[in-house]
């Protein structure tokens, strides 16, 4: 088994094929999209491949240590930041091919006009524990 992160970006990825902001969809199209995402996660639970899924608020804060006895510095958002993470799903699957297949399905979630969004999702393998048998 191998764990993969399916990463969804607000920005930073190339534009989706069906690239319309959600508040310009018909209300029923939003409902259909949410349903698709819920069904997708529920199906992965039944196949034993779902690990975790979370959505993130678009707004956050950059924080860094500022030396002994001083409060951390907070800043941002930085104008030069191109990337913004919208959320993720973690899956535990048998192969890279299965991970690609699932990411493809997730990217086909319906959007404006009820047509697949074709958005880019980033697929990142987890770094794992070293195996017990090494030779």
């Amino acid at each position, binding site marked *: 088994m191998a764990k993969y992160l399916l990463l969804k970006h607000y920005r930073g990825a190339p534009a989706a094929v069906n690239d319309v902001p*959600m*508040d310009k*969809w*018909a*209300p029923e*199209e*939003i*409902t259909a999209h*949410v349903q698709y995402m819920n069904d997708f996660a529920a199906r992965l639970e039944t196949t034993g491949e779902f690990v975790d899924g979370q*959505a993130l608020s678009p707004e956050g804060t950059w924080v860094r240590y500022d030396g002994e006895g001083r409060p951390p510095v907070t800043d941002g958002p930085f104008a030069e930041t191109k990337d913004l993470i919208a959320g993720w799903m973690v899956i535990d699957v048998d192969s890279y091919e299965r991970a690609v297949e699932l990411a493809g399905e997730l990217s086909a979630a319906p959007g404006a006009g009820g047509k697949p969004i074709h958005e880019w999702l980033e697929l990142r393998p987890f770094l794992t524990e070293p195996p017990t048998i090494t030779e």
Partner: protein
Amino acid sequence: MNEALLRSLTPSVLGILVRRGADFAAGEDAVQDALVEAVRVWPTDPPRDPKGWLVTVAWRRFLDATRADAARRRREDLVDEEPAPGPTPAVDDTLQLYFLCAHPSLTPSSAVALTLRAVGGLTTRQIAQAYLVPEATMAQRISRAKRTVSGVRFDQPGDVATVLRVLYLVFNEGYSGDVDLAAEAIRLTRQLSAAIDHPEVAGLLALMLLHHARRATRNAPDGSLVPLAEQDRGRWDTTSIAEGVQILQAALARDRLGEFQAQAAIAALHADAPAAEETDWVQIVEWYDELVRLTDSPVVRLNRAVAVGEADGPRAGLAALAALDDALPRHTAVAAYLHERDGDLATAARLYAEAARRAPNLAERDHLTRQAARLNAGRGR
């Protein structure tokens, strides 16, 4: 076996152990062990006296643990001595446990976890599931909480307000594992109101019952949020509403108003309206004025602006809103709603979309996005 009945015995059993000389942390562990044992044994071998059974088993577990304890500081005093049960001031013990588990030295999340375990009798696993954290994390949180209150004397009276805040949190926050936290909060508040006569305890119980009554209608079958005005009032739980109203009226009659009674009064006015249009918004605004006086909370002022918008028209609501900090959570969503009611649909759509970006949870985000989409598609409600 009725698990709720079993768990309702938890605080009095723990109280008895502590009065016999067990320290709180070890006693609480022993009671947990006894509960687990009861779940295993009772279905095939039900005890005649469930509470007596739990006390006996928990006390033995406690003695075993004390014997095994390397420190053995208190061993000589306790081992091989099973005190006569005697009269047990069960009610007082239960109340003391609430105070201890909500002690002001605890953080809110620790107080919630400790209350659910020591008073509610839930297992660490159940509590971890309810708050979506690993079981080991929740176990650590609970044992740290127990250490924090280890020096607190058990028989000291506490502040009911701290207990009510904890119970309010249990009702209002958390996810569902195999435990219904809202129902659990109601059970614990009911138990507390049996142990102490206090109008705010009654007020919180009424508030919970009135909100719980609407539960089945708060979400559509697909999980999306249904706002109060659009809920199917015919499906509200009238038994729960009647009980909440009755408890609230008895509390208000005592003329010691507090924030939970005032919140419950607002919920009761909503429950009382057969249709959203028949809501008595003027009276609701008056209750919000009381709440502002009692709490001076900006969140209350924000809710008041919504009520003013209904009672005196959207312009009045927007004027009330203008006095508030626009960084307040849900400020933008309220502004969007009032602008829509005022007929400025373009501004409303833009604000709904902005509110969606600031939404604190997915259900609200989806709801607000749908509101923006509805207006952008040129549709009314």
